[in-house]
Every structure is written in structure tokens, then in C-alpha cells.
């Protein structure tokens, strides 16, 4: 018998609590205070707002919420007038806070310059809805449904959004039906490999033994990736509810959240959420009167990239050095402490509540044939709007870059998109119509990965990009197996040699042999995919490698050793800016006469290029036969 009554009481209380915010008598200020918001100064902004309000004896309700995604617009503050709809503002920096408070809170006005939109589907007070903001229009926010909207530390906020309804439904359905529902949803692991979730669960269900474990993999380690952190900081209960559903279905007795210690806020919020679950009977023995007993422990990781690999993660939880071991046996058969163990990514778990509460039929409307649902991406690189985005799987890459991301910075040419982090590859601009789904990305030599997406433009050197990612995998290699430990170093050595202008024609073949050896010979997924950045750039941008080696030319002018800086005497007016800023005193010339760079002394730092006034743009770069001048820009006329 399931004790639904206890939950219903909680839901009632949650409605009351949430109702106070929805039908507010005093203004409500939502402060996006996840780690990203805090880094942009959200807490300082909040402090200033509070001070100004105190001076004016105005009372306002503050709610600290998680992250909405648009990193470029942090800190994000929403203001909900009494009995109104929240109005969302971006870039409310601490220096703007005082003016913001006056304009928006004290005078109940609208600060148009900082406005993002109103939090509804229709316009409100004549202001556009946020859903029509170009960055958000294409997005579908399922996983991030509560992020930035509720107080992650307030249990009732989550309940009021229908939280734990999925779990309750699961309990009433029974494990067989839950499994069937998840199978129908087509949910696949969001950690990278895209293994069907129901299959993993089936293995674990079929494994004998009374003790089974469920691990939530929150060891997000790709450089620049923060999807999982945002969910954990903005909506921890959605992940924990997913753990309950998964744990219930596979018959797990205990759950672990393996979270890196670099995510202190996420850990803090998880701890609070787990305590709330305990207090309301959602964890412990015979949860809600059912036969299901389950508890969750947070295990802090030390931040090794390889610990995101399942077997290394298990070793780390067991107190050993985080090193992968060969499979079989697979964790679903013999994992943590030798017991059947299912490991799921944060985002996979965050999907489960929705699949259960709204049904698989609802879920499959998002995505395409083999890739269902939505996926979060950390959109970065040379796009106008960077940030955390969630899109339905299967939409073309172009749409993500040009609609969600707003196109390329300074309207330059897109060269490639790197997906999947250090294990992924580079997709050239010709393939931008490729749908974003597991199979399509794999087919072109990249992977979905956990959701890194870096947009590269003509100023990115592809050899340098390969070198960057390889230097990451090399330093993060656990050192256990030979191909990964030594092979990545050998490849990195060759790439560095090529970038330094010392490449030989045979190096490309060597790189390919090494890449194949590492790919085929490595023990774990990290090693097997480590050569992907090299292989994919060799596949689509081989000409850049050849230019580096044969013509000693870097078309993006990135590789220092292949780039030289010069001053065009016809453009230089002798303003001395460059000479003054040159660290190696390589620039000489008289005032008001063209200057010259001494190539022997020049260390190619590029400072002269940066300081040369755009109205002269006299410094140009040369690499092999390539020459690049900066455009001359007319000086802006003074406005007043």
C-alpha cells in the first residue's frame, strides 16, 4: 500500500507556499544565483538591491533561483510585480543594481535596455514574452524546466511544479511497466555514448544478488561543459527523483551521487535536497509504505576527468585510485563492491520524472527516429550568444548556431563545430545541416558526448584545436594503459612539432598510425576516443595540416612560430603605440614616421596588432604566402 496521503499533504502545503509567490502581494525578485550567476556578480547585485530597498523601506520577497542558461546575459534578475508576471532582465551588474532598483522596483517601471522578456507565452504590459527571445525561441526546456524559476533549496517549490509525481506514478505502475515506459520513450544515456537506458536497466535487473547499486554520474569533466552543474544547482530534486525511479526499477538498494568537489554549490544543494527527502519519507526503509527501500550518499570526487568513466568512477567510490578496468564484466553485472551497478548521467536521470509523469507518448514528440527527447548543450566559442541551451534532438546544427547562438561573432565565416568535448570531433561548415542526433554525429566522426558544442570560425587553426584537445586528454590520461598514456603524448608531440613549424611530411602518416593504435588499443572510452579530434580534423581539414608542414603556413594566423607581424609603411603614421607596448622592444621608428618590427627580437605576442588604432590598422600578419590586414575602421564621430 502506498502512502499517497502523506504526499498529498505535502502537495497541499507546496501549493500554499508556491501560491504565496504566484499571487504575491509584494514584488518578488528572483536572482539567478547558480555558480555562473555568482561569478558574474549576482550576489553583489542582490546585496545592492537589498541595501537600496532597505534605505527606501520597501519590502520585497527574494528568491534565489538557479541558472536559466544565457551565460552572456548574466546576472539575470526577474522581477514580479504584485499579482503580476515575472519580467526578466539580463546583465544586471552590481554597478547597475542601484539604478535598476530605482527604475524597476521603486518606480515600478521597465528598464528596456536590460529587458529579456516576460515569463509567459503572451506579452504582458506590452512587453514581449521571453519565449520569443531569439535565444530561447528554438529551445525546448524539459530538463531545464525548473532551472531559474524555482528556489532549488525549497522542497515545496519543486513539489508545486509536479515534483515526485513521476516517482509516485512509477510506484503505482510497478517496475515492469516503468521499464516498458522508459523503453517506449527511447531514452538514451546522456553521458556521451547514448546507450539505451532501458537496456542497461534490464541487464541490472537480470543480474542476481540482493544488493544492487545506482550511481548518478555527476563527474562532469569536459572543458567548458556545465550542463550537469546547472541542473544540480538549479533543480537537484529532478535528478534525485530520477534516481528514485531508476533505483526502484532496477531494484537498487543504495544510490550514490558521484559529484566532483569543484561543484561545492551543487553538493550543498544536493545535501539539502537529500535531507528534505529523508524528512518527507522519500528515502529510507519502505519508501511511502512500499517495498522499495533506498538511500542516497554523495561521494565527492577529486576532479579527475577519467573518473567519469564508469569503472574508474566505481574504483574511486571504493576508495581506490580512479583507473578504469577492462570490461567484461560490465558494471551492470559486477560493479561497485562487485555488485550489479547502474550508472546514469545527471541529465538522463532528470528526464525520468517527465517520462513517467507525462508519459512516453508525450516524450517522443521531441527528437527524431533514433534520438528521442531533448538534450542540453553548453554552446561556446565564436557565437554571439553563448550559454546553456536545450534543444529537441534532431534539429540541424545550423539552427543551433544561427538561431539559438545568434550566428558568428563579428559576422565572420563559420569554419567548424566541435562537439562532444575532448572525445569528440570537428564537423566542417559544409555539414551544418546535419541533424543533432547520436547516429548522425557519430557518422561524421564526432560524438554527441555530454553536450559540449564549440563553434569555430576562420580565426581558429584546426591543427591548434586538435593540439588543444589532445593536450587535455594527455594530461587527463590515468596512465594505466600504454596506448593512451604514451600514444596521446606521442601524438601531442607531433602536433606541437607541426604547430612549431617543424613538421615533416611523414608526420601525417605517423599521426594516423598513432591515432589508430590509440583508438583500437586503449582500455577505456577516454583512450579510445582521445584521437577523435585529430582524426576528424585530419579528415576534414587535412589541407591545413599540409599547409603547416609544407608551406609553413597557418591560415588562421594562430600558430606563433608560423606567423610574423609586420607594419605597413603606407598605413603607419608613427603614433608609437605599438613601440610603447612592445614587451621585447622589437619595434623601432621615429615619431610620425613609419615603424619597423625587428623579426629577430619579435616574440610574436601580437600586442602591436591589438594596440594599433583601428583607424590606421597598420600592423598586418604574414604566414607563409598568406597575408592578413585588419580592416581600417573610420573613427567614430563623437556623439555629442
Amino acid at each position, binding site marked *: 500500500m502506498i502512502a499517497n496521503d502523506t504526499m498529498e499533504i505535502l502537495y497541499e502545503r507546496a501549493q500554499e507556499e508556491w501560491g504565496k509567490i504566484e499571487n504575491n502581494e509584494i514584488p518578488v525578485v528572483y536572482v539567478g544565483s547558480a555558480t555562473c550567476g555568482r561569478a558574474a556578480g549576482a550576489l553583489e547585485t542582490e546585496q545592492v538591491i537589498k541595501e537600496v530597498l532597505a534605505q527606501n523601506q520597501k519590502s520585497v520577497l527574494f528568491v534565489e533561483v538557479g541558472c536559466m542558461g544565457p551565460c552572456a546575459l548574466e546576472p539575470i534578475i526577474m522581477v514580479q510585480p504584485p499579482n503580476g508576471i515575472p519580467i526578466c532582465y539580463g546583465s544586471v551588474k552590481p554597478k547597475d543594481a542601484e539604478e535598476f532598483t530605482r527604475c524597476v522596483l521603486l518606480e515600478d517601471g521597465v528598464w528596456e535596455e536590460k529587458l529579456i522578456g516576460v515569463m509567459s507565452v503572451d506579452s504582458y504590459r506590452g512587453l514581449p514574452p521571453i519565449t520569443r527571445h531569439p535565444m530561447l525561441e528554438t529551445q525546448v526546456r524539459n530538463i531545464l524546466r525548473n532551472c531559474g524559476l524555482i528556489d532549488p533549496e525549497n522542497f515545496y517549490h519543486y513539489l508545486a511544479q509536479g515534483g515526485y509525481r513521476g516517482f509516485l506514478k512509477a510506484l503505482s505502475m510497478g517496475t515492469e511497466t516503468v521499464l516498458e515506459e522508459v523503453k517506449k520513450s527511447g531514452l538514451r544515456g546522456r553521458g556521451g555514448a547514448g546507450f539505451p537506458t532501458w537496456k542497461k536497466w534490464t541487464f541490472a535487473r537480470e543480474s542476481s544478488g540482493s544488493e544492487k547499486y545506482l550511481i548518478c554520474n555527476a563527474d562532469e569533466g569536459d572543458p567548458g561543459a556545465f550542463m550537469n552543474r546547472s541542473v544540480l544547482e538549479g533543480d537537484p530534486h529532478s535528478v534525485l527523483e530520477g534516481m528514485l525511479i531508476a533505483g526502484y526499477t532496477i531494484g537498487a538498494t543504495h544510490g550514490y551521487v558521484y559529484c566532483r568537489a569543484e561543484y561545492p554549490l551543487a553538493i550543498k544543494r544536493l545535501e539539502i535536497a537529500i535531507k528534505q527527502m529523508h524528512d518527507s519519507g522519500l528515502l529510507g526503509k519502505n519508501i511511502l509504505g512500499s517495498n522499495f527501500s533506498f538511500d542516497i550518499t554523495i561521494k565527492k570526487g577529486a576532479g579527475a576527468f577519467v573518473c567519469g568513466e564508469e569503472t574508474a568512477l566505481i574504483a574511486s567510490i571504493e576508495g581506490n585510485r580512479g583507473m578504469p578496468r577492462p570490461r567484461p564484466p560490465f558494471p551492470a553485472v559486477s560493479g561497485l563492491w562487485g555488485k550489479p551497478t547502474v550508472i546514469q548521467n545527471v541529465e538522463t536521470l532528470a528526464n525520468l520524472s517527465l517520462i513517467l509523469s507525462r508519459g512516453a507518448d508525450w516524450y517522443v514528440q521531441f527528437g527524431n527516429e533514433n534520438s528521442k527527447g531533448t538534450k542540453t548543450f553548453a554552446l561556446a566559442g565564436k557565437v554571439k550568444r553563448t550559454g546553456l541551451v536545450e534543444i529537441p534532438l534532431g534539429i540541424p546544427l545550423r539552427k543551433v548556431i544561427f538561431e539559438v547562438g545568434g550566428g558568428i561573432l563579428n559576422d565572420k565565416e563559420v569554419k567548424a563545430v566541435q562537439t562532444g568535448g575532448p572525445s569528440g570531433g570537428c564537423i566542417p561548415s559544409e555539414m551544418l545541416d546535419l541533424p543533432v542526433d547520436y547516429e548522425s554525429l557519430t557518422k561524421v566522426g564526432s560524438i554527441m558526448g555530454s553536450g559540449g558544442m564549440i563553434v569555430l570560425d576562420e580565426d581558429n587553426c584546426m591543427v591548434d584545436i586538435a593540439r588543444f584537445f589532445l593536450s587535455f586528454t594527455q594530461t587527463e590520461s590515468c*596512465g594505466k594503459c600504454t596506448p593512451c*598514456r604514451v600514444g596521446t603524448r606521442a601524438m601531442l*608531440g607531433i602536433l606541437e612539432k607541426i604547430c612549431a613549424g617543424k613538421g615533416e611530411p611523414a608526420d601525417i602518416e*605517423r599521426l594516423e598510425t598513432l591515432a589508430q593504435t590509440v583508438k583500437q588499443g586503449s*582500455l577505456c572510452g577516454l583512450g579510445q576516443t582521445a584521437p577523435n579530434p585529430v582524426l576528424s580534423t585530419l579528415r576534414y581539414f587535412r589541407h591545413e595540416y599540409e599547409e603547416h608542414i609544407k608551406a609553413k603556413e597557418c591560415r588562421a594566423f594562430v600558430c606563433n612560430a608560423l606567423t610574423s607581424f609586420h607594419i605597413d609603411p603606407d598605413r603607419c603614421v608613427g603614433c608609437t603605440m605599438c613601440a610603447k607596448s612592445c614587451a621585447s622592444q622589437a619595434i623601432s621608428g621615429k615619431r610620425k614616421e613609419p615603424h619597423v618590427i625587428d623579426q629577430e627580437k619579435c616574440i610574436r605576442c601580437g600586442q602591436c596588432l591589438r594596440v594599433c588604432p583601428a583607424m590606421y590598422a597598420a600592423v598586418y600578419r604574414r604566414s607563409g604566402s598568406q597575408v592578413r590586414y585588419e580592416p581600417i575602421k573610420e573613427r567614430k564621430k563623437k556623439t555629442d
Partner: protein
Amino acid sequence: MNVVIDGKTIEAQAGETILECALRNGISIPHLCTHPALPPFGACRICIVEVEGMRGYPTSCSTPITDGMVIHTQTEPLRLLRRNILGLMMLEHPSACLICDRREVCDRYRPKSEKVGATTGCHTCNNKEVCEVRELSADLGLAEIMVAPQYHYRPIERSEPFIDRDLNLCILCGRCVRICKLHQGKSVIDFVHRSSQTHIGQAFGRNLHEAGCTFCGSCVDVCPTGTLSDRYAKWFGRPKTKTGTTCIYCDEGCALAIYASNGKSIMATGLYDNLPVCVLGHFAIPEFLNSPNRLRTPQIRVNKVLRPVTHDETVSRCAELLQNYSGKAFALVCDTSSTLEDRYVFKKFTQEVMKSPYYFEIEPDKKGFAKVIHVPDEVKAIITTGPFIPIELRNQFEVVIALDMFYNDWSKSADVVYPVGVFAEVSGTIMDKDNNLRPLVQACSPPGEAKPEWEVIQSIGKALSPDNWKAYDRVETITAELGLENISLNLNRKTPPPVSQKLKERREWFRGYRIEDYVSGLAVVRNFEEGKEPETEKEKDKSEIIESPKPFMVLSRRELVPNTYEFVIYVPAIAKKALPGQFVIVMVDKNSERIPYTLSDWDEEKGTITLIIQEKGLSSRKMISTLQGEQLAHVVGPLGTAFEIKKYGTVVILGGCYGTGAVLRLIRALKEQGNKVIMISEARSHYLAYYQKELSAVSDRFIQTTIDASSGEKGHAVDALKRLLDTGEKVDLVVAVGCPFMMMITAEETRSLGTKVLCALNPIMLDGTGMCGACRISVDGQTKFACVDGPFFDAHLVDWEEVRDRREAYSAEEIQAVSLTQPAETIHREPHHNYCSCMERG
């Protein structure tokens, strides 16, 4: 359960891995990191196979076999992948020798490894003769490496007791880490750091003792490379015999394997992979038994002095001395370290021949200390097998016969001293603490004329009572008489001895002797236990050196490349008189060996000489451990006949190892005479090449060769010479300076080319002035002294076999001397970039 491996249907057993199944059925799959005693690890990736229906290339060592599996172990892609993976592994291991074209010549000329400081090639690797990597590389046909290897420049760790660790040879197979966990239940050592910085070590840089190491030695046993080595055993070469016997340091009865060469024990390990032994069983036996303090010849007291005599003389003296002391005037004292057979003969002798009731058999205490006993006052003659009686009681006895292994106060004052064989030197039976009988099997010979104890006593018995004493021909006869037949070693213990996990519980005494007085590593352990700071060398204040150098003072010392050092020494008298090609003899301290070194360069004005020194043994280790500002005991020179500096035309100089640096001044002198000088320098790999700038600056042409082609041309210097001659270069003289092997192959391979080749020989020398003859060599059938007639000789006329053999003359003594624990931190490494493995190194 049936599986198909390489087309053959094979019956597999449940629970075994693919590798186990294949090996059991005689199908060989190359493998490295796996070990029969250890759980699968899957790190080296050599044992990969293809399994139909499985993705990628699973490792056979870790993949459990399942019914119906179809496995391929020898496909072309597998062979290629294995070779490439080994090639990668060899980038972190001194590997040039594995792909050297002259491997076979080298193995013929120097079959045993030569001792050295830092190993940078197979011929100076203590593991050479049993190396699994060498076998694997031959099997897989490794012929080249893809990119330049990375040498890690890790200091060799020689300050731990018993174990030398050279992490530059490590391939990270993890066997040591796993066996430590298996045998000790904890990780004394583990992988440290990530990526290419990963290495084996203790947490937080602690030493082994602090980390909880009990020195069971299991890690050394399983290491497939020369990384971990038994400091005592490492340079003796491959043992000729392996004998299973029982350890008698304590009464646990562990089965040991004793390895011996020419009757001398070299190394001991546990007999079974799955059971560790303790520090004594693993590390304290050969050094104890081979101690230079062992008694070797029977001696009798003549005119108050002990004199060596024959067996017969000794025995008759014993009989003569004992004949008047039968009955209660005689006693025999022994302890339980003697075999049951020995003790049976002792007792029988005491009771039947001497008619005495006083046979004392002492049971040692927990630390192995045999309790001191008092002998009844009426006893006036005594036979003792060790120092068991307080020496103060010496005056009680009129006759003392010592059957002993070392000199002690008793044996020094005895009337007769007879050296006896003990432990692994004898056969017999012993009883362990659980009253199991265990065999003692002779694994090595007693030193000198030492004999088993029963044999000595039996001879005395025979002499005293020729009619009644029953003589035993063999120990087995006594065993049979005791009714102890058919004792075999198969009494395997089920559990490791507790002391293998608790260092403090080790025995400290054996036969009345403190073991650590004879086993240097145990003394180091004792220091650690007592909290004594390990000895460390202090850096000298460098400022005063420059201002007032003293003669023989080291003005600069730097490690050019691993194991090769450049020393600048203040010796104005030599700097004033030196001529190209001459050498000096250096004594590091007053007890040091005299070592000849070629004068690489000198500065008359500053009064300095420059020497290139490689660590090869104890004396050169002392030399390279000499720091800036320290004074050497003595430098003699210049010695030898100078090189004839005149106009030859085109001179090609071949340099290898120390020779690359030793010819600097010679090149300059030849240039000054208008010669065209072409310098060819050889090194095994790029990280061993040095002085390129210096040599390029003084020669007309500089050619670097490396064996692995990682820098310059591929091959030895002689290959570059031959290529040079092929281009039509007219060469008037070739001078080869390097190790005997390098000069030998140069001589052999240029014999037919008609070019004169000189070589520089520096064999073992004492005085360096032609008196002692130690440096004798044969040139064109005539005896020459390298010190005065040389060092330069016609390489085509030198007897190279003799050069090699004479260098080996003292190898046993050299090895014994070098088995030292080095004070911690003696070798100061230069800072970042020269000696770290970061990639910024140029």
C-alpha cells in the same frame, strides 16, 4: 564448454580467461602485465585478441571465456596493433638496444650485463638475461619506433634498504602494485600522478619504510623489467641453479628458492608465487652466507697463533686435545639451527665417544637469540658451534674447539677453529614450529674448506674412537637412521608467515650472530626504526670555491646526459703539462680504487682539467657523488703516450659514450696542424647525445648517429664512417674512442677497408707507470702495457677478446663492493627542464 581458438575447437573450463585457456592448450598469446599470481589488469594491451561478436580488441588476460566463443589470436591486424602498442611502450623505456642491428654481435661480445649507474640500454641492464620485454620485442618483430623516445630523467632510487628502483625503465605494468596489495593487503606503493608523469611510488613522497613496506620483496620478484632489483643480486647475472629448500632463520618453515651460480648463492625468493616470505628469507640469505667475514679454512693454534692447516691435521689435533677430557670434563654446545642430523651426530659423539652427559641444545628465543648458558664447572673441554657461552667464562676451559661460521671472541681464542657450512649450504632435516619435518636442501657450497657440521664431528669421532664410531658416508644415511625418510618440500604453507606482514617481528639473531651486522640493508631498516635521519650529503658553499681553489678540488660537476658527468678539477700541475691523448688516474678517497680517465680538455691558465666520467661501479659512483667544492684524494698525471699530433690529411674521429667528450682537445690539436677533422658521435638515443655544439664548433664536420634514429643518422659511428667512405671521402686516419664493444666493431668492420684505425684503451690500471702489469693487453701478438705504450693502438691488431676478459677480472669483487645502500639524496639533480620530463625540454 567448447570454444574455438584459431580454428581449433578446445574445451574450456568455467571461470578461466581466454589467455588461461589458450596457454593451457599450448596456444601462445603474447602478454606482459598479467602474472599467474595476480588478478587480471589489462593495462599493457599486448594480449589483445579478436572475439567474434565482440567489439574492438578485448584483452585475453581479462576476458572470461564463455561457451561457443570464436577467438582469433594471430590475425594480421592484431600483430600490427600489438607491435605498435609495444612500440609505444618502448618510448618510455630505454629501447634503442631492442632495435639495434648489432644485437647479436653485442650479445656475443658481452653476454652478461655490465654494471652501471643509470641503465640506458640492454647491455647495462641487470635484467638483461631474463627480460620479458626483450623476448616480447623479438616475438613481435619490433624494428623501429615511431617518434623519439621520452626519457624521464628520474633519479635512481638507491637509498632504500635492499631494493634499487630505476623508474626510467618502468613500463607501468602494475605488477608490483598488485602483488603488494595481494600479499600485504595494503598499497605501500601505487600509481602516482597522471598521464605521462604516471609512475610507481609511495604516497606523499614517503620512503618505503614509512609507507609500511615490510621488504617481503614480492614486488622485485614480479617486475618484468630492470626497474625493481635486488641490490645484492642485480649484477651477478642469470643464476645457474635454482634449488628449493627451507628457511631456517626462524621456525616458520617457509619454502625458499635459492638461486646460485658456481656454487655461490646469489638470490633468494619464496618458492611459491602466492606466498610471500619475510625480509630475511628474501634479502638476508646470500649476503649473510657470502659475507667476507666467513671462516674459510680450518685453523689450529700453534704458538699462540691460529694457523691454517689441512683437514687431517685439524682433526688429529682435535683428537689429541680431547682424548684426556672424556666423561664430565667434556661438553658440546649447539643450537637448533643445526639440522636434526647434525644434532644427532653431536649427541651421539658426546655420549658415545666422549662418554659425557653434557650435550646442550639451545632453543633460541622469539628474536632468534640463543640464550647464553652456563656450563658446569667440571667441564674443561668444550666444542661449541657458536658464541653461546659468555666469553668471561673462557678461562674455565682448557680446550675450546669452535665449529663456527664467523670469527668471534670464542673462535679467536679457540684451540681449533673449523669452518662449517650452514643453512642453504647443507642438506638435512629440520622441524618447524608446528612439528612438521621439513627438508633442508643444499643449494650452494660452503665457503672455502668449510664442511657440514656432522662431517667435522664424525671425523673427530673416528679419530678418537676408530673402532667403535660408525662412519656415515652421506647425510641421507643419518636421515634414514633417524627414520626421517621421504620428507619432501611439498609441505606448502597455507598462509604467509606473520613476519612477512610485520617487519618488527623478524628474527634478529642466527646462531648467536646479529644478522644485521652482516646484512647491510637490515642495518638501514634498523636506522629507520630507531628514527635516525638517513644520511644526506650537504651541498657545498660554492662561493669560496672560485676564490681559492685547492688542488684536486672539483670546480664544476654536471650530468651531461643520464649516467655521464663532466667534471672540471683544479690540478694546475697537470693542466700545465698535459698533451692530447693523455690520461690521469684519480683516487676519490684514500681507500678508493685508482681509475684512469682520459683528459678531455684542460686550461693551463686556470689550472683546470676536464674529465668525462660514467658511473660504472663503486669507485666511479664515489666519483660522480663528489660535489662541487669537494676535494678528491689524488689525481696523478698526465700519464700515457700522447697522440702524435701532425698533418695526416683527413682524420675521422669516432666517439661513443665517454669517448664523445674525451676527444675535444684532440680534435683541436689536429685542426691546428691543418688536418680536416670529421667527428662522428654515436649515442643510443637522442637523450644520450651530448657535446654536439662543442664538437661542431671545433671540427670541420660533425655527424651525430643514434641507434634508434631519434637524432641524426641511424646506426653506430662506424656506419656513418662507412657511408662517408662510400661517398668517396678520402680518409687518412680513423681514431675510435669509446667502449671496447664500439672499438671492437669499428675494428672488425673496417679491417678490409684499408684505412688505419687507432683505438684508445683504458683497461684496469694500478700505478699507470708500467710497473704492475694490470693493464696488459696483446697487440699483434705482443704484450703491451696500455698505461705507458698506449692508450692508442692499432685497432686492427688488438686482441679484443682479451681486452674484454681482463676487464672482467675482478667482477665478483666489484659486484660485492657495489651492493651498497646509497645515502639518501646523494645525487643532486639539476632543476627543471634538464631533468624533468616536461615537454619544454629542447
